[in-house]
């Protein structure tokens, strides 16, 4: 009898297509169907921290705005905690930290309101149960087992789907005014080409007394945004 690993295989991704709004944001597709759509209020009414607006474009390889894109945002609260059982700590009542953002069909501009997240600290030390048993019984075996992880600078996690995108693209948005934290960020520092790190840093501006971060995402071409295989 051959040994069998008995793992299943992950379901393959397919493009969200041009009509992703029907499923995930039907109001934008032109009809009301649900009592409430999900993901329109990222931080909730009780969130502490600096209120901010984030705006941008997704730009294709021809330099044109992608007008049918849908983005999802995933972020920590001002204390650096995610709204999840493994998120590091408590969050404010009503803070979900997740949002759905669609573009204007004519201009491709998108934007959302939220609060600025805190540094996520410390980065979770992740080990498998097998690795943990090895480390407990043979402390010398895994030289990297006690490696520490630096805090991650404040960031938003973004996920982009659209027609022509075969599998959702993961990226991160960091904040221009966090230069010191960004310089120490373990993820930014993974990017060998220092000039490419700049593609993940949003520009801070002010408009009518409100803090606005500008973050354009380039799918291709000069200054292609860094995407992550997570």
């Amino acid at each position, binding site marked *: 009898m051959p040994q069998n690993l008995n793992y299943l295989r992950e379901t393959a991704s397919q493009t969200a297509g041009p009509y992703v709004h029907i*499923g995930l944001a039907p109001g934008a597709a032109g009809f009301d*169907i649900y009592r409430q759509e999900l993901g329109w209020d990222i931080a909730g009414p009780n969130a502490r921290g600096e209120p901010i607006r984030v705006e941008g474009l997704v730009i294709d*390889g021809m330099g044109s705005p992608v007008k049918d894109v849908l983005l999802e945002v995933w972020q920590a609260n001002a204390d650096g905690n995610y709204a999840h059982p493994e998120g590091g700590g408590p969050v404010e009542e009503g803070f979900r930290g997740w949002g759905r953002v669609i573009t204007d069909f004519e201009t491709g501009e998108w934007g959302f309101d939220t609060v600025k997240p805190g540094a996520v600290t410390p980065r979770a030390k992740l080990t498998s149960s097998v690795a943990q048993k090895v480390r407990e019984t043979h402390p010398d075996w895994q030289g990297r087992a006690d490696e520490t992880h630096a805090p*991650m600078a404040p960031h938003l996690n973004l996920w982009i789907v659209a027609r022509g995108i075969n599998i959702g693209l993961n990226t991160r948005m960091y904040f221009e005014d966090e230069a010191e934290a960004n310089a120490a960020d373990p993820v930014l520092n993974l990017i060998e080409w220092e000039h490419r790190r700049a593609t993940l840093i949003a520009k801070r501006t002010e408009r009518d007394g409100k803090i606005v971060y500008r973050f354009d995402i380039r799918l291709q071409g000069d200054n292609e945004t860094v995407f*992550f295989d997570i």
Partner: protein
Amino acid sequence: MTPAEYYQRDRRLHPPAHVPSYKTSVARSPRYSMISLQNSVSEITGPVFGHNDIDPIDNDLIKNYAKTGDPVGERIIVHGRVLDENARPVPNTLVEIWQANAGGRYRHKKDTYLAPIDPNFGGCGRTLTDENGYYFFRTVKPGAYPWRNWVNNWRPAHIHVSIFGSGFLQRLITQLYFEGDPLIPLCPIVQTIPDPDAIEQLTAKLDLNATIPLDSIAYKFDIVLRGRRSTLFENRLEGN
């Protein structure tokens, strides 16, 4: 006990970004390699949904937009489980679907195909998996429709499926196809997937055992999300 990382995604069974035969991907595909990231708390966590977020009728596409009667078309049930690569169920996770009506037309202001809009069909639904990872939808079978890629391309009948899982790195959007559809091997979007078995895995099987006699025919569609080296259960803190 710290949470464990998820298995690395096997990119060989996912479509690459750049597939010239699916023309829209040409200008929308990143050309640099992605940066591989070790899991951190930013990836292993994700939004949690509850029954307050949705209504019980949301998974019934035959009734959730009905105005003057039921939608036109073959009445079907789509059901299955959301599992991880260890074959463990993924409970309480949000599954959302959207689709064309029986004529192949989407209720979307950007869809101009000449098949008629069905006044009683919205084309979207959502549900939470139960404690065993089960989900089901009631709907009508979507029609095939033409699209602009090559001059004469037709999409096989399909339902778009969006699944969250328990961490954001399990996030997945895919499409469900129907067993026996002759358009599947001809579709440039299906064929972006390099692995024939992975395409087979997207093809829902006719499930006569789950039909409702004289009412609805059923298709079974299991969804597999990324596995995890060990899962933290409150009653089993040691993990695996």
